[in-house]
């Protein structure tokens, strides 16, 4: 069945308010259950091993319950934060329009539920920031910090590099090795620059 057909079917049901409310509930908890399993399997861990990563430690039986969508016990927000910490992934909880719920509900492939840990995705985050910096014109030495426009000292070599074909590669290297004129740790590129990882990539936890 095509995704469009599935979405069409679901949309018909979502027109019923009672179904909508129930879908919210089931969508959140089913996603959490399966995403927890996806994260654990991505890390090649047993339930017991994953439970040991949680602080404080969780028993294997508890992880098993958290992965079971039929279980009575539902995870609290605090539990989700502990699980996110154990997997070293981010957690987002926010309200979204039903169009978002609909789109995400039909993307249930387990690979879509996998999330890299911070260490694994760090090179990509840095490359992304470097790329965004190019788009924002940071190469000219202009960057935004704390909502103020900060004009950095002019460096002729920046302009030379700007003409280079290896611009992005150069920026990546520079990001990894901050220069005195723009220490990476002091540069804020704004909240929209760094992609946020969501433990629950499929829906918001209401």
């Amino acid at each position, binding site marked *: 069945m095509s995704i469009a057909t599935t979405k069409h079917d679901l949309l018909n*049901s979502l027109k019923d308010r009672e179904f909508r409310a*129930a879908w919210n509930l*089931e969508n959140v908890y089913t996603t959490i259950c399966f995403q927890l399993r996806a994260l654990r399997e991505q890390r090649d861990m047993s339930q017991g091993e994953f439970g040991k990563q949680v602080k404080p430690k969780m028993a294997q039986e508890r992880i098993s319950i958290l992965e*079971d969508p039929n279980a009575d016990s539902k995870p609290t927000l605090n539990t989700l934060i502990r699980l996110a910490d154990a997997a070293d992934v981010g957690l987002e909880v926010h309200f979204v329009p039903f169009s978002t719920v609909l789109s995400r509900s039909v*993307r249930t492939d*387990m690979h879509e539920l996998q999330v890299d840990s911070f260490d694994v995705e760090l090179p990509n985050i840095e490359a992304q920031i470097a790329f965004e910096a190019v788009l924002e014109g940071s190469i000219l030495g202009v960057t935004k910090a704390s909502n103020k426009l900060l004009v950095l000292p002019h460096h002729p070599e920046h302009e030379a590099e700007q003409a280079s074909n290896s611009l992005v590669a150069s920026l990546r290297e520079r990001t990894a090795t901050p220069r005195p004129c723009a220490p990476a740790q002091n540069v804020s590129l704004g909240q929209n620059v760094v992609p946020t990882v969501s433990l629950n990539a499929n829906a918001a936890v209401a």
Partner: protein
Amino acid sequence: MNEWSFFDYIDERGTNPIETWLMEKRAVPVKARAKIQRILLQLAGTALWTRPLASNLDDYEGIVEIRIRWTNTQYRLLGFRGPEQRQFSLLVPAIEQDDEFVPPTAPDVARNRMKIVIADRRRICEHRYN
């Protein structure tokens, strides 16, 4: 791309007993239907189904039960992997009470329907997530 596509059994009169059951609010309240459909969608994206959500039925080779609990009702969807690869055919809806299927004939009906579907693939249609 999904790992599995769900199909519903079509009886000799051309009716779909799975859809009829799902849309019958006395049998399956709206909230239960939401849960059943959500879990089916998730299973469609999951290559390997594990207990307790799904398990092979003892003494009924090839028949798999999908176990979905909503409040105090244990819903069971009996089906089989097929007729084609990456397809799962839903054959019989049931509930489980005191370790027994209701109706008690559900596993036998599932086995018969599986044979019918394997012999005639026109006896299934795509499952709708209504």
